[in-house]
Every structure is written in structure tokens, then in C-alpha cells.
């Protein structure tokens, strides 16, 4: 009787374990998608560091949208995003996305939904001056082809522009 009881407990555990395994499988698939997309963001940042606009462009879907961090800023389409990146490439040298810290975004069911949240500490050179401590938080959303369809950015962009003006005058 004792053995039967123990066997029942063990079987129950295995059944409940099977259910969790399904959750695990779902989580693993979601994390695999996240990791794939995280690689895209890493590659995007690498292309910005290398001032390679063409490669940067390849990571965005044609319908991509950028929600800017600036007070009074207007949304950008893909063309606007690339013009924005190009502007920074023209102004700065040695652009670096340091201290990259990546996390998945989650959907309504709290499972990673393929999006990528990142913290980065940007730096660049403006002439002989080094610009450091540009800390930003960004959220990237992807389509099923692993192309970026939306970027939300949060940072002190006015402070950055003021710093550029200050350093440009030196």
C-alpha cells in the first residue's frame, strides 16, 4: 500500500513536471527568439560603431518607426532613422555603445515576446574632445523576419545636443 501511495505521488509529480516542461519549452523558444533578435541589436550597434550605415539599414524593416526621446520630438520613419544615424556619424568619431546590457521584453502573458530592452552607455569623440556618459535605454520590437519595426528611446537628448554645441565651440 505504501509503495502504491509513493508511486502515485511520483507519477503525479511527473505529470505536473510534464506540464511545466511545456511551459519551459515555450520559454526556451521565446528566449531563443529573443537571443536571435538581441544579436541583431548587437550587430546594429556594431555597425554604428563602424560607421557602416548600409549595414545598419539592413536591420530595419521598411515600415520601421522610431519614437524619439526628445521633448517635442516627432516620430521618425526608416529614412529619418538612417538620416539621424548618419548625422551622428558625420559629427562624431569613435562612436561606442559601451556597457551593453540586454533583456527581453515580455508580452501580456509575461513570456518574452521577441523584443529586446537594452541599456547602453554611449561615448564618442567630437574633434579632440571625448564625449562620455551618454546613458540611454531603448526598446526594440521585431517582425517575424527579425527586422526591427519599432524603437523607443529614453535619454537626455537635449543634454547631448547642448554638450555637442559646447564642445563644437572649443
Amino acid at each position: 500500500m505504501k509503495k502504491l501511495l509513493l508511486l502515485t505521488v511520483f507519477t503525479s509529480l511527473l505529470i505536473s513536471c510534464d506540464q511545466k516542461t511545456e511551459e519551459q519549452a515555450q520559454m526556451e523558444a521565446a528566449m531563443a527568439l529573443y537571443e536571435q533578435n538581441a544579436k541583431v541589436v548587437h550587430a546594429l550597434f556594431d555597425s554604428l560603431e563602424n560607421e557602416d550605415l548600409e549595414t545598419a539599414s539592413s536591420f530595419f524593416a521598411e515600415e520601421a518607426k522610431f519614437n524619439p526621446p526628445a521633448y517635442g520630438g516627432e516620430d521618425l520613419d526608416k529614412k529619418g532613422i538612417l538620416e539621424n544615424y548618419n548625422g551622428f556619424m558625420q559629427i562624431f568619431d569613435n562612436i561606442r555603445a559601451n556597457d551593453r546590457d540586454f533583456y527581453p521584453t515580455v508580452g501580456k502573458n509575461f513570456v518574452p515576446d521577441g523584443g529586446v530592452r537594452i541599456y547602453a552607455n554611449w561615448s564618442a569623440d567630437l574633434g579632440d574632445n571625448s564625449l562620455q556618459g551618454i546613458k540611454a535605454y531603448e526598446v526594440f520590437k521585431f517582425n517575424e523576419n527579425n527586422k526591427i519595426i519599432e524603437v523607443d528611446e529614453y535619454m537626455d537628448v537635449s543634454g547631448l545636443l547642448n554638450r555637442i554645441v559646447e564642445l563644437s565651440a572649443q
Partner: protein
Amino acid sequence: MKKLLLLLAISIATYSCQTNSNSAGTVLKNDEKSEMVKGHLEAYMNNDSSVAETLFSEDLLIHDQFVNNQENNSTIPNPGGRQGLIDADKFTHVLFSNIKLTTDKISTYQMADGKTYTAFWSMWSGTGNFSGEKMTLPFYCISLWEGNQITKIWRYMDPAGLNKEVTAYEGVNNNSQKVLGLAELIVNPGISPTQIEEFLVRFSKFVRKTEPGTYDFGYFISSDGKRVNLVEKYYTSSDFVHHLNNFENSNYSKEFMALFSLNKVIISGNASDELKAKAKAYGAELRPQIGGWIN
């Protein structure tokens, strides 16, 4: 022995069932902490600090990730702890009406290292009480928990709109700390505009490098090249005093006096006693603010 094996098998099964971690940690579902943060945001919209009083630790550290708030690549925490946050939150209600925050993107993360964070992405909006302008601001905030209190906060935003409203508020109340130095200079005989221009290139660089509190510094020449007026702005009277000391202790003061003669000097704004005393040496007239605003 059989019992031992069975027990071992159960233990393994139980352990493998409980393991559901990934490198990013775990997102907590419908958790109490996210609800607490949401409760604080809702109270904040109503200018109610009661939730903040218990949610945040007294020695709360707030790191506003501003470009001018960095030292050795680290963000300098805001002063004042929890009370500083409450005072700042209340001040935003002095500056703005109809403050709203979206609260649909709040998540709490249990990290692999045991730390718990709550993050929210939001759109802050309000109407300036002094400028009349409606402002929206993308706002991201992440909080670190210790027990049931938040002890550290990191915030990412563009403060330009808030600063603009602070300027409007100071203008209406004539209580800006900013001070201006205005002067009419006579160009000394034999001095050419080219000489003045060359001097100002070097002098401006010197001021930029040594005076972080000097935020506007403009010189303007008349069409006949005989007069120059200057407009200098300082965040505080102390910054102005620093500029004057800096100027006097450098060789630029000698060069300046070789190029120009002072015709009229005005110090505008609410000058401190120290600045007033310093102004006497320049024969400056003091003019407190009576209206408008100082950017």
C-alpha cells in the same frame, strides 16, 4: 535501498520541476511590487505623496541619467533621498496642471543574482502653469527593491521641457537665481575688429574650460567697430563671482583692458551680497528682475 532510490527519483523530479530560470531572470506575474509602483504613480498624478512615504526608503538614491550629471562615467545621485523625491514630485504639480502618466507598461524582474527590479515605460504629460504649453515626455524608470521598499532609482528622460517650465515659473515669480552681466565697451584707439575677434576666440575657450556656471557668453560689435557690448549669463551669483575671480587672476584681464575701456556695466538679476560687493569694483549698476524670464 529501493525506498532510497524512489526518494532520490522524487527529489530529482521535484528539483527539475522547480528550475525555470534563464539568463535574464524571471518576470513576476501580477506581482505585488508592480501594483505598488502603479499605486504610487496614480497617487502622484493626484499630488498625493502618501504612497511615496512608505514605498521609498528614507535614504533613497535617485540617479537621473542626464548628460551633465556624470562624474567619472557614474551618475551623481540627487540629494535629499525620499524627501527630495517627494518635494520634486510636488514641485512638478506647481509647474504643471492635469499631470498624467501612462501605467500600462510596468514589470517586475526577479534577477538571477537575487535582486528585484520594477521597471516602467511611460508617457508623462502635463500643461505648464506658467508657459501654458502642453508637454509630453517619454519617461523610463527602473527601481531596485530591498524587501518591500525601493532603495535605488534610475531615470531616463529628456528634462528640456521641465527646465523650460522652471524658467517660466522663475520669470513669473521674479525669483530666478540666474544673473546677467551686461556691458557697453569702448574699443581702444588703434584696436582692429580682427584683434578683438582673435582675443575672443581664446578668451571664450578659456571661459568654457574653466567656468561650467557660465552658460551664455556673447560679444557684439558696432558697424563702425568702435563699440562692443557683452551679454554674459550665469546660473547663480556664485558662478558670476567665480567668473570675475577667474578673469582677474588670468592674463586675459590685462588683454581685455588693453582692448576695451568700460563705458557702462550692468548686473541684472537677483545678485547675492557677495556679487554686489564685487560689482562695485567695476562701477556696475545693479538691476533686480522685474518681469519676463531668463533662459
